[in-house]
């Protein structure tokens, strides 16, 4: 199958955060130094009330991008046109720069499992997903970003590595990639591969955005919980990503145990520092190691935040 001629990427946005309801008022009142915000699409597919009220306020001051979990791009039933219509309307109403969802399936036969379920890495899956991405891109009239998910199983049917699968889909459909560095790390531990091989195999032409997040480490395996600060290993991988992909669009993605905004800003500023150091000094400069050995002190406070929530 011929590859499409690659289109230009969207203009890069810099360093962003996921917009969470806990921070609405702070964001409006204090206008923090965040270059852009990513919103969780489904939270705003409602008719009115607080979520939309705050969303439109934030949209007046920051560029927004949309990140969804319900496109079900890997499912073998027809796409949900009603969902896509709502997504398209929301995108227009907040002037979202782009839209992303996950390379996975989330349910089938009318049942939604509400989980990011992995696909077998096969030629059959590639053909199927490429066709679906093309349908979505035609419908939206813009390029879609797809994100790599964390996974816990591998299928016997798989014919290639996850990164070959991801590259091939991006190339054939000319969609863009949202690389979640934490998810790469989680899957690397769970499936025992070197995360750097993954990162270095991805075609920089196709990458638009990165996620950085935390996870829960169970020793033999890791669960992608997005409820912890970014860990050292993921920061190291992030530094490698900056080296390989250069100026791009990074963000911290926290979905649970939401700490005060100031703590996420510390984490984001740390990401900025590493990016600046890597791009001026190169990855092997001692300053990078120095930074990584002095992670911002977010661990303690986030632990307290989750305890308070549990009481």
């Amino acid at each position: 199958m011929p590859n499409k001629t690659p289109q230009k990427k969207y203009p890069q946005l810099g360093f962003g955060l996921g917009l969470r309801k806990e921070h609405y008022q702070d964001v409006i009142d204090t206008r923090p130094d965040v270059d852009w915000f990513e919103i969780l699409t489904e939270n705003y597919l409602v008719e009115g009330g607080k979520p939309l009220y705050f969303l439109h306020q934030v949209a007046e001051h920051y560029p927004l991008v949309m990140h969804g979990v319900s496109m079900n791009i890997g499912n073998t039933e027809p796409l949900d046109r009603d969902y896509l219509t709502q997504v398209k309307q929301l995108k227009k109403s907040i002037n979202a720069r782009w839209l992303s969802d996950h390379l996975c399936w989330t349910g089938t036969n009318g049942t939604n499992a509400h989980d990011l379920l992995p696909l077998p890495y096969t030629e059959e899956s590639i053909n199927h997903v490429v066709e679906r991405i093309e349908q979505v891109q035609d419908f939206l009239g813009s390029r879609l970003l797809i994100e790599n998910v964390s996974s816990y199983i591998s299928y016997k049917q798989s014919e290639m590595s996850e990164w070959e699968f991801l590259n091939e889909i991006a190339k054939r459909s000319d969609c863009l990639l949202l690389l979640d560095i934490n998810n790469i790390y989680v899957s690397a531990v769970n499936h025992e591969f070197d995360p750097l091989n993954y990162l270095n195999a991805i075609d920089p032409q196709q990458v638009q955005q990165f996620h950085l997040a935390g996870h829960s480490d169970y020793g033999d395996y890791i669960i992608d919980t997005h409820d912890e600060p970014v860990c050292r290993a993921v920061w190291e991988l992030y530094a490698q990503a900056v080296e390989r992909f250069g100026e791009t669009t990074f963000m911290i993605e926290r979905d649970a145990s939401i700490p005060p905004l100031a703590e996420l800003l510390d984490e984001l500023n740390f990401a900025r520092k590493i990016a600046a150091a890597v791009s001026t000094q190169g990855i092997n400069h001692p300053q990078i190691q120095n930074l990584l050995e002095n992670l911002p002190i977010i661990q303690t406070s986030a632990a307290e935040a989750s305890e308070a929530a549990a009481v």
Partner: protein
Amino acid sequence: MNSSKSQPDLKELQRQMLAWLKAHDPVIKESVTGTEKVPADLRLDIYANAYRYRLIEALEDTFPALNTLLGDDDFFNMGLRYIERYPSQHFSLRFFGHRLADFLAAEDGFKEQKVLSEMAQFEWLLRATFDAAAQPRLSLEDLQNIAPEQWPELTFSFHPSLQRINLSFNVPQLWRAIEQEQPPIDIVEQEYPAGWVIWRRDLRTWYRSMDVDEAWAMDTMQEGENFATICAGVCEWIDEQHAPTRVAGFIQNWINEGLICSVK
């Protein structure tokens, strides 16, 4: 295994995985590989558990007072039964609890305690109010321009966030005590169900009880009946001569409370 047996295609593989999540159907195990450290069974369990926990978490989020009434363990087990009975079909978790009140009213072990279904219904409506559409309100000044002879024909439309519910139990009081973390109060069943209205104003959710004639007037007006019809109807409870003042009083209150959006 029969070597001529063909590999499941993508559609079949997804069907098998979903059957594993929903009912622990083991067929999918033939397609999943494990490692020495993490065997396939454990890997599949991660997904089966995540499936249930995520849906129950969504219920906890929508029904916190029901959760307190039942206690965490019973709420969790109730959630497991609900997931089996009504798997999620909507693209958003927000709508997963839409049949919980019906489920509690019908299922053995829950239907005997009617307060559970009422609480679920109340909390579901609070959620509906929270993210209902926004719409501008009518003001009392808008009414002043209407000539008296036009009044009998007037119809009013309500704010999209308005929800009506009739409750036999002291559910809103229970809800409030739980929400404000006050000491538990007794569950009380009234002789007659009481009418309640729930709505949103200034991004906040409000609720209050109503007398029986007010509740009837509101329901009838929502059905599109005009002022004259409603005045005639409330005569079931009060003197005919007082009816127009009584109904005009309701409307004035509703406008002040931000419940009415337009008049025709």
